[in-house]
């Protein structure tokens, strides 16, 4: 029995077994090459012919690109680390519960078994959880290209919808996510039509309270509303030095709604609805983060 039902347009394929070989393939200016990691975003685009690369460079056979380690107060993920590995990591659960919670919201176990940490960052979907976590925690990306390597703060990495600061031919090799410091409260909330769908809107929050129980520092990052995960500086400023209470969270939520000039609007949710959700989720998210915070606690990471 043989018949053919190919979906993608034809492409050439290479599975380099070293970083150097991969960079050579990706650096060729005459070929339109695309990196293949877990394939959970690229394959749908190939199957729908939204992507028609000449060459697909599969980085799955390069050694040492997957793994989780602790380095200088941060968790460092090899780009090819699967979300399943992040989800089952005791280290992540202990040191970075916000990332653990966000991981459970990325698609389904059947997608997380192959989808990678690097792939989610490089894909830069505005509604994706991982970029929001990277921005909320002050994470960084390490990229390697023909001209050497560089570290890019998450705040500069996401440029616009589906676009990152990676240069052509550059490979993302590591993602650093600082551990949550002791006493920091956190929350990760999103709303999607069905569990496992991309979020219509979501909010990641971290807060630190001082000895008196007032806001010392907070980070509020909204995703799924703007073209990239966005810090809500006005709302963060509004909380600073204040005592946590529901009326304050409501004012912060108003500041979140005011922060967007042109929210995304598509078949999944209108701009108005996304803005409404961002406010509601920010209000809840701040309250949840405060409930998890331990006032005045300082010191080494947990």
């Amino acid at each position: 029995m043989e018949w053919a039902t190919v979906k993608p347009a034809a492409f050439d394929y290479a599975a380099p077994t070293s970083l150097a070989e991969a960079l050579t393939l990706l650096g060729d200016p005459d070929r339109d090459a695309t990196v293949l990691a877990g394939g959970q975003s690229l394959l749908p685009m190939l199957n729908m012919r939204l992507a028609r690369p000449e060459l697909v460079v599969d980085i799955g056979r390069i050694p040492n690109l997957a793994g989780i380690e602790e380095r200088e107060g941060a968790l460092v993920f090899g780009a090819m680390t699967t979300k399943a590995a992040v989800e089952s990591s005791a280290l992540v659960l202990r040191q970075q519960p916000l990332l653990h919670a966000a991981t459970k919201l990325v698609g389904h176990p059947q997608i997380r078994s192959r989808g990678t940490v690097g792939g989610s960052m490089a894909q830069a979907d505005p509604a994706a959880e991982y970029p929001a976590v990277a921005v909320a925690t002050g994470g960084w990306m390490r990229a390697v290209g023909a001209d050497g390597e560089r570290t890019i703060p998450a705040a500069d990495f996401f440029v616009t919808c589906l676009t990152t600061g990676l240069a052509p031919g550059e490979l993302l090799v590591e993602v650093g996510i600082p551990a949550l410091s002791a006493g920091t409260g956190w929350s990760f909330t999103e709303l999607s039509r069905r569990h496992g769908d991309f979020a219509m809107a979501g909010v990641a929050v971290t807060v630190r309270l001082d000895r008196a129980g007032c806001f010392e520092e907070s980070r509020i990052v909204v995703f799924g509303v703007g073209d990239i995960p966005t810090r809500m500086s006005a709302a963060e400023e509004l909380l600073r030095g204040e005592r946590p209470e529901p009326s304050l969270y409501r004012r912060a939520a108003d500041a979140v709604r005011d922060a967007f000039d042109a929210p995304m609007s598509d078949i999944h949710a209108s701009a108005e609805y996304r803005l409404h959700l961002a406010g509601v989720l920010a209000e809840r998210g701040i309250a949840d983060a405060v409930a998890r915070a331990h006032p005045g606690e300082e010191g080494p990471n947990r």
Partner: protein
Amino acid sequence: MSSTNGTRPVRVTVNGTVHEATVEPRTTLSELLRSQLGLTGTHVGCEHGVCGVCTVLIDGKAVRSCLTLAVQVDGSEILTVEGLAAADGTLHPLQEAFSAEHGLQCGFCTPGFLMAVYALLTEKPDAGEDEIREVLGGQLCRCTGYQSILRSVMRAAAQFRESKLEWVR
């Protein structure tokens, strides 16, 4: 491995049998299984990862075979729904549970559900209802309303904890 145009050989173990095939790089695993190896138990629906009917096991993990290239699984072990029942056709206990609890109607979605659940229970024999629901949430069924599928899996899970040996393929 250097890059060359055109087809290339792949070697995969499917349900315990080694297969060698020649594929274009754009051939997905679902297509290799169905059209080259004749294993049409693995269904395809959406071909963009959403419906889950194409779910198979690659080296023990449940994955979407429509979102995996055949060339990516060169050297891997694949388990498909055809690998569940015994050689004489005796149904696997998981399949028996679906039959007993009416976990299927038209049956289009069933291979995907079986493989996703098989992967969960063999990896986490103590999986509770929440974990089971989460895995079921990644598979679409347009007939059953899911409650009978959940009952099938809960029944199978209880059984699995008692008699693992009959289970693992």
